[in-house]
């Protein structure tokens, strides 16, 4: 039977190719951490990692993900062992209602990998990519927060980046 790998578990596909990755994760796998906001790729609440890269799960057919690895917020950490980014969101008050938070955290985790790989953004000048508040704001623009916790989210991402870089000097501001 065809299936999609979500957080290391095999989730069977149904017979309807219209099922999105988002619906598969929430309704079939019962992983309701990933949220449905706009369902049209505009808000980022459904952000998950596909082979390590962040994507909008609402704009992908589940059947397209056969043979690929999906990581949701549940795959990053749990109540007993929080992911460093989850811990940082708690410490820096990076949310209010929490609806966008799983998407924000998946996005932020991927963001640090993108920086590590040297992928540029609209605010990156020529030369090496370094993390700054401007970079974080630009790179997180696909995740809306209607409560407006953006500044604290930025601080949380910077804090994890600093922690990762400790011993190699702090991230440039």
């Amino acid at each position, binding site marked *: 039977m065809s299936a999609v790998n979500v957080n290391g578990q095999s989730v069977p596909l149904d017979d*309807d*190719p*219209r099922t*999105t990755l988002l619906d598969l994760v929430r309704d079939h796998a019962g992983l309701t951490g990933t949220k449905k906001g706009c*369902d*049209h*790729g505009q808000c*980022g609440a459904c*952000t998950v990692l*596909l082979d390590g*890269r*962040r*994507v*909008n799960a609402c*704009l*992908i*057919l589940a*059947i*397209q993900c056969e043979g690929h690895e999906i990581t949701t917020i549940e795959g990053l950490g749990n109540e007993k062992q929080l992911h460093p980014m989850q811990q940082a969101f708690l410490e820096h008050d990076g949310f209010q209602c929490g609806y966008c938070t799983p998407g924000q955290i998946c*996005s932020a985790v*991927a*963001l640090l990998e*993108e920086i590590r*790989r*040297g*992928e*540029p*953004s*609209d605010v*990156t000048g*020529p030369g090496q990519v370094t993390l700054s508040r401007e970079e974080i*704001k*630009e*790179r997180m*623009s*696909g995740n809306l927060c209607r409560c407006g916790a953006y500044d604290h989210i930025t601080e949380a991402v910077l804090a994890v980046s600093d922690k990762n870089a400790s011993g190699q000097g702090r991230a440039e501001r």
Partner: protein
Amino acid sequence: MKPFDYQRIRTVAEIGARHAAPTRFLAGGTNLIDLMKHEIETPDQVVDISRLELAAIEDAAGDELRVGALVTNTALASDERVRKHWPLLSYALLSGATVQLRNRATTGGNLLQRTRCYYFYDTARPCNKRHPGEGCSALEGQNRIHAILGASDQCIATHPSDMAVALAALDARVTVRNLEGEERELPIESLHRLPEDHPEQDTVLTPGDLITAVTLPAPPAGEQRYRKVRDRSSYAFALVSVAVVLEVRGGEVENVRIALGGVAHKPWRARKAEAALLGKAATEDSFREAAEAELAPARGYGHNEFKIPLARRTLIATLRDAAAPSSEETSL
């Protein structure tokens, strides 16, 4: 979403006569899946092409770069060769959408994305692009984001891509494979069409045609700039954008290629501005005359009148910026 038959193919040879029926090729899906949810796109068959081997960026003869149709916007914008030799393309890509979308969106799909005209998306309102002959709601409606050049009384929608605007200024070529398996190459400028009496046709492609690659000609001499004006500083379509390749020698314009985005049904190659600039002194006066030449036939429809002066000023500013480094070199 209307039910459809899903097929996954591994080679382009699997595309055949049966795909002449209402079919959509699905790659990243960032626009197509959305349109299918709105039931604006209602294909009988969806052919998943995302596993075709078209995801490579390869050096080609004559210092050209061949970009496979399935190369993602992220991969293309991050490619060291593109960043170094065709930075205009990297800037344009990075100014569009979000990381999540660019991670999925492909080179071929970006070119074929549909307009974001409000009425094209609003299935309760007439739209000639959705249903030919129904009428255009934008002509007398909310048309702030609409076209000022090359529109018709049938449609005033704009093409939303930033990437395509950069490709137009870079003289890129598009490789297309037809249902019979024959390949043809066309200049990017000939891919998209103006609405005229058939706004339902965004491009010259016919059923079963598949874009397989985009080729960048050898890196152009001079400076490359992409300037995008939008309602918010990230994650917004262009109100107006300007792509410029400008070579200034001894204070004179030796070579210039200009394309405008957000102003027409297709990436708008500004041939009149180019002709007005070539061989002229690279001065503010020349830039203004060039912009005015291009925008002389521009027409607003009410809410989008502001785009005419905005396009003029953005074009002048982008040329000025592109000319600055060269003028400094000349003065040394």
